[in-house]
C-alpha cells in the first residue's frame, strides 16, 4: 500500500482534476482524505493506492497540474489508519497503525464499517 500526499489549492474542481489523472491511468484509489491544512486557501489530499509502480507513474502527471503545489509519496512510518465500525452494540472508532486497524476490523466483524488512511 502506497500513501500519497498532495498539497493543492482549495477550490471547486480540484478533486475532479486530481481524480481525473487516476482515472486516465486506470488506478483505483483505495482511500482518500481531504481537508484544510496549516496554510490558508490550501488543502491536503492524502490517498492510498495498492501498487507502487502505478503510484510513481501518475506522480509527474499530478505535479504538472496547475492546482497541485506538491505531490509526494509518504514514508510508511508516517501512515495511520482509522475506521468507524457499527454493530448491534453501537458505533466504535478505531485508530492506530495500518496493521492494528486491519486486525481489529477483521476480528470484530462489524455489520457496517468504513476504513481510511491518513499520513503526515
Amino acid at each position: 500500500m502506497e500513501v500519497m500526499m498532495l498539497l493543492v489549492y482549495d477550490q471547486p474542481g480540484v478533486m475532479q482534476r486530481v481524480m481525473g489523472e487516476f482515472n486516465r491511468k486506470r488506478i483505483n484509489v483505495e482511500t482518500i482524505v481531504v481537508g484544510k491544512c496549516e496554510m490558508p486557501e490550501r488543502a491536503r489530499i492524502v490517498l492510498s493506492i495498492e501498487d507502487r509502480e502505478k503510484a510513481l507513474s501518475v506522480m509527474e502527471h499530478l505535479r504538472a497540474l496547475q492546482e497541485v503545489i506538491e505531490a509526494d509519496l509518504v514514508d510508511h512510518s508516517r501512515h495511520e489508519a482509522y475506521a468507524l465500525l457499527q454493530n448491534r452494540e453501537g458505533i466504535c472508532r478505531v485508530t492506530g497503525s495500518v496493521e492494528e486497524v486491519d486486525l481489529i476490523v477483521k476480528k470484530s466483524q462489524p455489520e457496517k464499517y468504513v476504513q481510511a488512511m491518513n499520513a503526515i
Partner: protein
Amino acid sequence: MMKGAKAAVELLKQQNVEIMFGIPGGVLLPFYDELAQSDIRHILPRHEQCAGHMADGYARVSKKVGVCIATSGPGATNLVTGVATAFMDSSPMVAITGQVATAVLGNDAFQEADSFGLMMPITKHNFRITDPKLLPETIKKSFLIATTGRFGPVHIDIPVDIFHADITDEQMEREVKIPKPKKNLTGLLDAVKLLEKAERPTIMIGGGVGWSRAGGDIMRLAEMLMAPVVTTLMAKGSVPENHPLVLGVCGMHGRQVANYALNNCDVLLAIGTRFSDRVTGKLSEFGVKTKVVHVDIDSSEIGKNVKGRVGLVGDAWTVVNALISGLQMRARSATWRDRIIQLNKECSCDYNLKSEPLKPQKVIYEMSKNLPDDAIVTTEVGQNQMWAAHFYKCYGKRMFITSGGLGTMGFGFPAALGAKIARPSSVVADIAGDGSIQMVSQEFATAVENDIPVIVCLLDNGWLGMVKQWQKLFYGSRYMASKFAGTTPDFVKLAEAYGAEACRVDRPSEVAEAIKRATKAEVPYLIDFIIDPEEDVLPMTPPGMTSVNCIKGRCEWKGGVA
C-alpha cells in the same frame, strides 16, 4: 470601473490578440457587443469545431496563442474536438465559452452543459469564473499557462452575468504569476558521454522541436555527431528534408531508411517527442538494443512510454545548445553516417507515377515540385495525411501542419484558413480526402466571405480510404461503412456553390498545371483529383508490430530490416 464584457475585450487586447475565431450565442451577446467596438478581427466559422482548428492553425504558424470562442451548451460541446486536437499536439490556445448565469448554473438551464467538466481532461488547465473580480487575473493567467513550459490549450468558462458585472481598475491591474517550468539537466554529462561513445548515433525529433524553433540547432548537432535525423509526423518541416542527413518521417507509414536508423542505432537522442504508438510500433520491442537519451520539456513524458538511459527536462532549444557546448569537437568514424546517407539515396525512389488511374503519389510529387519554398501544407487525417507525410518534401521555409495526436478528420481545411491568416504571403494548401472534407466543407463559406485564398487538393477516391485499407489488410476485405456508394457530392460544384473556384483532374499530365493555376488564384480553390481507389498507403508496419512485419508494396527498399 468597467463592465465584465468590456474588461474581457480589453484584457484580450492587452495580450496582443489580433484575431478571434468564434460563433456567438445568447450568453455571449454582451461580449460580442463590446468586441464589435474593438479592433480585434473576428472570423465567423460555420461550426465551432472549425473555430478551434482555425485558432490552432493560426497558432502553429504564428507561434502565438490562438483564440477561439463559442457559446454555452452546444457551442462548447462542438468546440471540444478543436480543443482536444490542440491539446494532443501541444498547441497554445485560449478557448473561451459562454455559460448560463451563475444563478441558474447546475439547474439544467437552456443551453447549459458542464463545459468546465467537459474541457478538463483535454486542456492544459481550465477555469470557470464564478466571481467577477477574478476575471482579469484568470484571463491573464490563461495566456501565461498556454505559453509556459509545454504549450497547450487553456479553457475559460464565463457565465453571462460576469459580463454584466463591474470590474474595478485595481482588479484589472492585478499582476499574475505562475511557477516557472522545471528544468532538470543533471543528466547532461551522462548524455554527452553516451553520445561521444556512440558508434551509430541517431537523433529523433518530435513536435517540441518545432515549438522551440530548434531545427537549425538540431542540424548543427547532427553534423557534429555525424548522426542522421529522423522526424516524427509532428516534426516534419522542422528540419530541411533535402539535407542528406535528414531521413524524413518514421513510424507506421514512415520512410524505410528512417525506421532503419531507429532500429539500428546504438544511441538514440530523442528530442521533444513522446514516443507515440504510431512511431514505436510494438512498444516492448522498441529501442531494446538502444540507449535512449530522452529530452522533453514535460517531465511527465520522460519514461512514460520508453524507459530511457538518461532523461533531460528542458525545452529543445536550450538542451540542444547545452549538448552542443558540452560535446568535444573530435574526429569520429564516418562509417555510420556514410552508410545512412547511401541508404537515404537508395530510399528515395521515383514516385513521379504516370500511370492511370491517377496515383495520389503523383499528386503529392507535383505539389512538392510546384509549391513555393515557403508554402504551408496542412493535411486532413487518413490516407491523404500519410501520403503527404511520406512523399511531400519539406525544406526551406515550408511548413507541414497536421493533426498528429488526436487524428482529427476535418482539421486540415480550417487549419489552413488559420494558417493563411497568420501568414498571408504564403501559399497554403490543404491535402484533403473526400471523407475529411465532407466533415468541414461548410467552411468554404468562411473562406470566401473573408477572402482567405487557400488551396484544397482533394485526393478523391470515394472511400474512407484508411478504413478501407485496414479492412482490406486485416479484416479479409470485408468492407463495411467505408465506401461512399455513389452519394458523394460533385465537389467542384460544391466549392463553386460557395463562390470558390474549382476544377477536376483525373489525368497525371494535368496535375502540375492545375496546381500552378491554383497557387495563382485569388479565391479559395479546390482541385478534385480523382485518384485510383485501389492505391494503399505503403510501406506500412501493421499496428503493434515491428519492421519485420512491414508491408512494402511499391517500395523497393533493399537496406535490410528497417
